[in-house]
Structures are given as structure tokens and as C-alpha cells.
């Protein structure tokens, strides 16, 4: 049996080793400690891949949440590919919400990503339901964005009109440049954030409260993605660039020090 300490060490290691080699490193860790495989696969986010729905011709994204054995469920047709005899499907109520959420996030994707691929998968829980919103956009070989928003809605927890929502969001962002002047440059990685909230569930559309859930999840994801986009921008183009400047200064430090000394002299002479 793998211990909790080993699981934590595996996560710490994956947080340190190259984010471009997550899947290799995951394989290596689970070769060392095979018992960690299932826990790690469900808690480590990797760049998303897509498949084409045979029934509708539309692309959908693949993840652990729409997988059953070697088959994946299309959110558009609700069918598994390759077909399964005894697959688990969402309940009728949750599937209806899933269809609604896919329609809503299709609009969201168009408005914010102006392209790309998206999929929403929901599943039943004892006290409510849970789901994942996936969004993917590629900008050629040199850029890619993957959003993975996993949420849980606890319908028993809350006060009368409200329900408890919990959202864990990961964005995987990779950027790169490869040319004569700069050589090879890769700026890649992922960030994860969590939020919990008690939200009022209004009646929206034909599905009443369930329509309200889709709106609440939509707003939660939209706010979180907006915040994360700002954070990523700050880390990728602010912090990373600053560290390069901390390592080496383009401007001669003697000049900079002289300037600072001159400034100090001016300030101290003004104080006199």
C-alpha cells in the first residue's frame, strides 16, 4: 500500500519537475510506486486531447471523468466510443443539466476563445451532483491553453434557497518561440485555484432550479477563469521575466549603482 507521505512526495515532485513532461514523470512515479497510479491519475491534470463524436461529427474533449475502461462518452450523443454494454450514464435529471451546460458553455467558449473545443460532463452524487467543464484552444505549435474546472454541488448543504458549490480550476498554458535570434524558448506550466460559495438557486428556463444551477456554475467558472488569466499573465510575463532580470542585468550594475547613489545624494541634500 502506498502511504499518504508517498502521495504527497509524488505531487511535490510533479510540482518541481518540468511541466512539459508531466505524463513521462507520472509514468516514472507509478513505475516506482504502482499503488499510487489511480490516485495520481485522478488528481494530476494533463493537457487535454479530443475525439470526434461518430454520431454528431462534433469534437469533444477526453478526460478521466468521461472515461470508462478504454471508452469515452461524447457529451453530444451521450454514447461511448468504442461502445460499451454495461456503461454508467448520468441520471436523466443530471443528463438534462449536462445538455444545458454544454449549450451554455458553447456560447461562453465562442465569446472568450473565439474557437477551440469545449465539453462539459456531469455525474450524480449522493447529496447533489458534480461535473467538469473543459476548454481547449491551440495557437499553432507555439501556444496552447487547457482549462479544467471540476465542481461539486452539495444540494443538502445550504440555507433554504442556497446550495453549496465548490470549484477547483486548473489552467495549463504553454507558449514558445523557436528562431535564430532567440534559439529555443519554452514558457509552460499550470496553475490551480479553488473557490467555495453558497449561492442562491433561481428558477431559470424550463428546467427551473436546474437551469439556475447551470447559470451559477457558469458565473463561477467565468469569474475564476478571468482571475486565473490575470494571474497567469502576471506569473508568465511578470514574475518569470523579473527573475531573468534578477539573474543577469543587461544594464551595467556599476551605472545603476552610480545612478542610485546620485539619487540618494539629491534626496539627502534636499533634506538639509
Amino acid at each position: 500500500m502506498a502511504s499518504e507521505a508517498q502521495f504527497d512526495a509524488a505531487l511535490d515532485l510533479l510540482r518541481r519537475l518540468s511541466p512539459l513532461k508531466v505524463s513521462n514523470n507520472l509514468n516514472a512515479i507509478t513505475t516506482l510506486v504502482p499503488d499510487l497510479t489511480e490516485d495520481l491519475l485522478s488528481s494530476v491534470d494533463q493537457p487535454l486531447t479530443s475525439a470526434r463524436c461518430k454520431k454528431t461529427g462534433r469534437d469533444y474533449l477526453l478526460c478521466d471523468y468521461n472515461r470508462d475502461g478504454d471508452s469515452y462518452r461524447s457529451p453530444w450523443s451521450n454514447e461511448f466510443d468504442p461502445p460499451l454494454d454495461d456503461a454508467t450514464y448520468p441520471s436523466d435529471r443530471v443528463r438534462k443539466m449536462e445538455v444545458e451546460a454544454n449549450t451554455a458553455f458553447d456560447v461562453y467558449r465562442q465569446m472568450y476563445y473565439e474557437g477551440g473545443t469545449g465539453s462539459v460532463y456531469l455525474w450524480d452524487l449522493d447529496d447533489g451532483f458534480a461535473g467538469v467543464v473543459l476548454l481547449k484552444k491551440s495557437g499553432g505549435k507555439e501556444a496552447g491553453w487547457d482549462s479544467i474546472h471540476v465542481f461539486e454541488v452539495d444540494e443538502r448543504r445550504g440555507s433554504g434557497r442556497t446550495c453549496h458549490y465548490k470549484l477547483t480550476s486548473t489552467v495549463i498554458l504553454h507558449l514558445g518561440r523557436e528562431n535564430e535570434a532567440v534559439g529555443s524558448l519554452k514558457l509552460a506550466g499550470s496553475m490551480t485555484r479553488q473557490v467555495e460559495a453558497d449561492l442562491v438557486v433561481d428558477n431559470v428556463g424550463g428546467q427551473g432550479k436546474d437551469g439556475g444551477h447551470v447559470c451559477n456554475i457558469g458565473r463561477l467558472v467565468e469569474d475564476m477563469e478571468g482571475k486565473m488569466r490575470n494571474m497567469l499573465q502576471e506569473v508568465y510575463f511578470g514574475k518569470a521575466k523579473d527573475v531573468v532580470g534578477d539573474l543577469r542585468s543587461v544594464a551595467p550594475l556599476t551605472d545603476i549603482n552610480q545612478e542610485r547613489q546620485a539619487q540618494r545624494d539629491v534626496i539627502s541634500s534636499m533634506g538639509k
Partner: protein
Amino acid sequence: MTSAVDIASSFIQGAPPGELQEVVKDIKTLTSDDDPALIAKLNPAFERYNEEQMVTVKLPGSSDYVLISKHNKLSSASSRYYDTQTSTSFEFDHTSSKASAAQSYTHETQHSTLIQSILKSLAAHFADHYPPTTASAYTVCATPDDDNQVAVLLSTTKASPKNFLSGRWRSVFLYDPSTGTLGGEIKIDVHYYEDGNVALTTSKKIDSVSVGSGADGAAIVRKIAAIENQYQEEVNRAFVGMNETSFKQLRRQLPVTRQKVEWEKVKGYSLGSDLKGEAKR
């Protein structure tokens, strides 16, 4: 099946600047059940890592850093290195990353005059561009084995675990006195790991840039400074370019309408004609 030593060695190879000990701790936790002697078998991986990363270390009783590389190694079979700036040789324990047994040492080479000349100019270049707040070092030495070229090495590491940040700059230049040309490679690594894992990795090869045969230390260091500065400016430009083009094209900050999605009315939008056409693409 890959062995535990191979796997652990690959983890060591991938350790970000200044985070080797944390990676080793994780390896120990992951493997302790089966193989407590594993770390002892990883010395070749530590050696390779320290030399490739050109890690810097303080000599006992000194406040200055010296760097570790395959170029300033005394012999391939030993773990003794030398530093031309301080004229010392020292033992380096690759597993514990500690230097010891420093003693006076002068390396026999046909390039000793040139090396001294480069060292003199390099000290000023180093002070001008490598901030004293980082663990940085430089050295100049003849290439081992053939003694044909002169290696000019600069390395600096910043590790700030409190801010979940680390970074390393490495410059390797090889000057060939017989052709008067300079070649080499510059590499930058930056790691940010607060609630995430973001890494910058760059590498730029420099192919036989002419300095002129018979060039002195000042001319060689001037060329090195120019190459380093130009490269750093290119990297800064790449940051700006990626922010302003690639990043913006992935996801907008707000929709074209400058307004957030009205989720209650989303069904209305989706029945609109253009979205339906797009969805089939």
C-alpha cells in the same frame, strides 16, 4: 522495465535550479520502503547534474563562490575541481553538494597568459552584469583532454523558496586561439511553483563568432558581453511578443461585447445563426 536507479536519476536530471535537495527528499520518500541504499547509487546522476548545471559552491572559509563543470575538473576519474581565479583546487561531494580540502593549485596549460588576461577583464564584466544577490561564479580554464581551447564559464543561481521562485543563468563560451573564434551556449531556467508549476527553459547556441586570432582577454570578454546582452534583449522581446500576440489569441479577457456572459439568456444567444454554423465546424 526501467530500474529505480534510472528513474530516480531522471528526476535528479530534471531538478529545477536550487531545488535538488527537495527532489532528493521526494525520491527518498517514494522509494524508502524498498530501497534505502538507492541514494548511494545515484552519485553518477548527481555528478552529471552538478556539472551540467554548473552549480556554484562556497569554498570552506570563503565567501566567494566557485563553479563546478566538466571543464575545470582535475581528472575524469576524480571529484576534484579547480578554480583559476583563486588558484585553488578542491574536493566536491556530489551527493551532499559540499566543497572541502581546498589547496593551492596552478593548472599546467599552454594558454596560461591568455587565461589570466581573460580573467582580468571578466571580473569587471561579471561585476557589471551578475548581481551580488545571487549565488554566482565564473571561471576560465583550458579545455581538459586536448588543451586546445579556453573555456569561459559563468553561472548564477537564485533560489527563493519563500516566494516559490528559482532561476539559473548559464553561459558556456569556448574560445579557440588557433582560429580566433568563439562558440558556446547560453541557457536560462526559471521556476515558479506557488499553487502551480510554471517553468521557463531557454537555450541558444552560439556558432563560431570571429573575435580575431591573437585577440586578448579584453576583446574576448567584450564579444562575450555583446553576445550575452543581445541574447537577453531577445529573450525580453520574446516575453513581450508572447504576451501581446500568442497569449491574447488564446483567450480574451472579456468578450467582444466588453460584457460578461448573461447566463440566464444564454439559450437566446445560442439560437442565433452564427453560433450554430460555428458549432458544426
